[in-house]
């Protein structure tokens, strides 16, 4: 038994609130691991990813879900992916690295980000106040994501369902990000 115990805390302490037409909650168990495709060995990395997740590597700017729907792969850049999955313990990177067996360079990004899920019929109206992206279903379908900036904060927005979005932003400014999203909801609800 160690002398000291480290208790984890999420950037927003597990925030969750129902605003009526919009619900907002922090996704505390969402793990993010980045995978970089080695130069000249992209095909091998692609094959390893396909083997590990059962889906083809998505094209840059698009996302894909693993066969068992446990992971979502966001192709952020030609040589970079984010792998999102539920994983509470601080060994997400090791878990992915083991499945890729050195075919890609992996980095744990979980603690660098805060994840918010905004859902409900009013979520597009709220997001309209901070998100410069066109969220019309024709322009931004389920599964689509994009890197953008909201209230001066770099962020990633992913449409996980018709009326549900996952918002990722830096964990150090999580409080400001939450304030921005909450204000948008309050200003529209």
């Amino acid at each position, binding site marked *: *038994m*160690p*002398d*000291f*115990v*480290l*208790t*984890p*805390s*999420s*950037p927003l302490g597990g925030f969750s609130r129902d605003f009526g037409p919009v619900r907002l909650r922090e996704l505390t168990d969402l793990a993010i691991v*980045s995978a*970089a495709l*080695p*130069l*000249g060995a992209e095909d091998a990395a692609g094959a390893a990813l396909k083997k590990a997740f059962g889906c083809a590597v998505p094209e840059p700017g698009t996302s894909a879900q693993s066969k068992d729907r446990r992971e979502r792969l966001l192709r952020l850049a030609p*040589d*970079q992916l984010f792998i999102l999955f539920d994983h509470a313990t*601080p*060994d997400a990177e090791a878990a992915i690295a083991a499945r890729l067996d050195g075919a890609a*360079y992996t*980095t*744990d*990004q*979980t*603690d*660098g*980000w805060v994840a918010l899920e905004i859902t409900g019929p009013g979520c597009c109206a709220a997001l*309209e*106040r*901070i*998100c*410069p*992206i*066109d969220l*019309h279903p024709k*322009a931004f379908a389920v599964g689509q994501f994009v890197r953008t900036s909201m*209230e*001066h*904060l770099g962020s990633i927005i992913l449409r996980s369902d018709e009326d549900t979005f996952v918002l990722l932003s*830096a*964990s*150090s*400014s999580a*409080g*400001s*990000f939450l*304030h*921005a999203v909450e*204000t*948008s909801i*309050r*200003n529209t609800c």
Partner: protein
Amino acid sequence: MSGPWRLPSGGLIDRDTTLGFRFDGRGMRGHAGDTLASALLANGRRLVGRSFKYHRPRGIFTTGSEEPNALVQLRSGAHQEPNTRATVAELFDGLTATSQNHRGSLEHDLMAVTDLFSPLLSAGFYYKTFMWPQSFWEKVYEPMIRSSAGLGRLSMQDDPDRYDKGYLHCDLLVIGAGPAGLAAARAAGRAGARVIIADEDFLPGGRLNSETFEVDDTSGVDWAAQAAGELATMDNVRLMTRTTVWGAFDHGSYGALERCTDHLADAGERPRQILWRVTARRAILAAGATERPIAFGNNDRPGVMLAGAVRTYLNRYGVAAGQRVAVFTNNDDGWRTAAGLAARGVGVSAVIDPRDGPAPAEVPGARILRGAQVVDTRGRKGLRDLQLSDGSRIEADCLAVSGGWNPNVHLTCHQRGRPAWNEDIAAFVPGDTLPPGMTVAGAARGQLTLAAALKDGHDLANSIVADIGLAPSKAPLPRASDERSDIAPLWHVGASRKRAWVDMQNDVTAKDIHLARREGFRSVELLKRYTTLGMATDQGKTANVNALAILADASGKSIPETGTTIFRPPYTPVALGALAGRSRGQNFRPVRLTPSHEWASKNGATFVETGNWLRAQWYARPGEKGWRDSVDREVEMTRKSVGICDVTTLGKIDIQGKDAAEFLNHVYTNAWLKLPIGKVRYGLMLREDGIAYDDGTTARLDENHYVMTTTTANAVLVFRRLEFARQCLWPRLDVHLISATDGWAQFAVAGPNARNLLRKVVDSEHDLSNEAFPFMACGSVTVCGGTPARLFRISFSGELAYEIAVPTRYGNAMMGVLMEAGREFDAVPYGTEALGVMRIEKGHAAGNELNGQTTALNLGLDGLISKSKDCIGKVLSQRPEMSDPDGLRLVGFVPVDPSQPLQAGAHFIDTDAEATMDNDQGWMTSVAYSPSLGHHIGLGFIRRGKDRMGDVVRATNPVRGNEVKVKIVSPHFVDPAGERLRA
């Protein structure tokens, strides 16, 4: 009935809803659907304000956003808003408004005396007057001018309203919901396009609501309501009333201001206004046209109004703008005002038309005067009668003036497009160069008649719809007929001897324009600035074209030769609060918190902003009298035993790839190819021009895996620069970067007991002995029974020191654990001040030294520039100017009298030299009180510093007016041999 001038029936107001309001303290009543202007007029109120310069009595001139005269202060207390146009202020129950720009009452303005001095106050008078005596300027003239300037008054309190911003996207943005706009939006909406239609008015319909036209065999008013109703039900259409599209910007983006609660007595929690950025694939500008007046003697009296406005008050608001109305028009449209008034039983005394020929309309009861002009008017606080060119007088309490209509081309010019002159309508129309994606429809394009405007909007929308790949709807074009609209230009009644106002808002007369031209201001742009014509809230919407026609006439040039001034955003005023949006107070920018912020808050920390970060600056303890006590204690305790500092803010860049070492070799000045796994190295980066850029340590965690640290300030810049280098300079290297700054909570654990403390936290299988984990070692460890962590043996303080990193989720807990484990050693948390003191004591360069002007040689780091390889900035760092052997060197300074403090920013002068720029030897960059030495110490750059150890110079600070004698010493004040950090 709400006021003596309200007609018994008619209008688009809700007569069942009566609203009470106050103007200058007097209670009045209006109806839902009124503007403040229409309600004032209904109450028989003609005088509503005083003019800017001459304090002339002024009334309501228009019905829209072009209003130059009827500016009022709306609301009270902190909500007070000056210079609001009464013509666009929607009436609500309880509205309070006050008139502006008078001393004493509106009726008896003491400042009206300035009108008597008007010959002295001509164009550019303030450039000519107040010239002597010179000493009067600051004390007398300027305060006097300032107190007279401006119209309304600010509350001088914080704006209590909320504002918001937002982003909208569409296939087609329709700007204006008049006949052309509604026809366009309906056609595009029916075809399935994503449409946004915005109008500044609260009621869609534009001029249809002011006229008695028919469309599709129904009244124009009903047609507009039906069209708007249909648009409101379409999922693909967003109908935005009370929304002004005020600017056309790059790439099809438009600024739009939505006034959400200005029509409500209490906004509640809702934002008052929203500033939208609309991104549109295409836009149709259907902004309509603005009527222009004719300049003649004393044409600014209350009661003189635009003819179209008189018609709007009549038809839309059920208000007669006067009881005996005369009409002065050079075009057929003005006649419809006369005919409309007569038809509703309002007395029309005369129709005065300078043109000859048969009357375009029947006006029962009115004198018809063709070939005549108005030269003067009378009536002190409101029009009483007018004088014609033949000397005869006509009684009238309202004169409806029409000089023709100017298409609202403003937004077509926001990207430097120039309008073109159209002789047929005697007005400017949009030129050939429009903002990309914009087309213009209806009156804004010079299609001034109804059927033409409807067809224009309908057809243009259908062609845009086809162009973006949709099938145009088969719905037919709305049917209407074209009204008569002939015109013969008349800008200024030359026979007038009296002052003829061109720009009412800025009190610019035709005479001022002539004078300006005579004084050499011949370009319209110069004319504008010299006379102030076309400035302020209305931006000369009713004045500009007349002014340049008068200038053209005086210059003997044509109007197109004379040209227009540039139209710039905003089209109508936008409150600064709306531009700021939510970015005020603490929300001005995001705040980044360190992982131990919560712990620090509970343990006496004072925070300092470093960029967006809030960092603990020091941790005060009870009994400490000031920050110095806390900082001195933190330094002493750390050097004596152990201190802990959250250093998460330093940038961390995860670098992976087979060629990562080669990449580091390119970006750092020193050698990186042979750094073993498990080791850290200090590195220096140069800018391309050879100046020192950033420094930090990089650790090799694995064969192809490094973690770089950067300074806090440059974390983002270095990352961006490395991405550029990776992608553009060396794209063939296998190297991948990702930020890890926020992912790891990192703590410096420094002091002789650092190892002893960490041994209690790091799991026991990791050997921390000096042999197993020496200075500059690094590696992955586990802490507190298996939590992953990274340990680096590096030292900024000069002590035996480590930095330990854990996933950020454990950061706050880790700070507590380190303190708990350190209790037996009297461990202290320390902040950025103690961190700074210790780095100065150790002689480490930081931001003050790496200031973008200094070289590696200046910093004494020239040994770090490898001779055997190239790196960014190496070649240019070898320029002769940068290798001057007599140049600046970083050294330490101590006061000769140890009791004296030092100041950063002081410049070094030889003891016997005068303190001048020529004798400047260098400057002090960083100073601190050193608790270790018991006196102040400093770092600084001085010429030939390394060769001048022991020399005494003066550190002079002319800005603060002091001077200290200092001795040049080694910059390593504490443990120069580095024994402690290797212990």
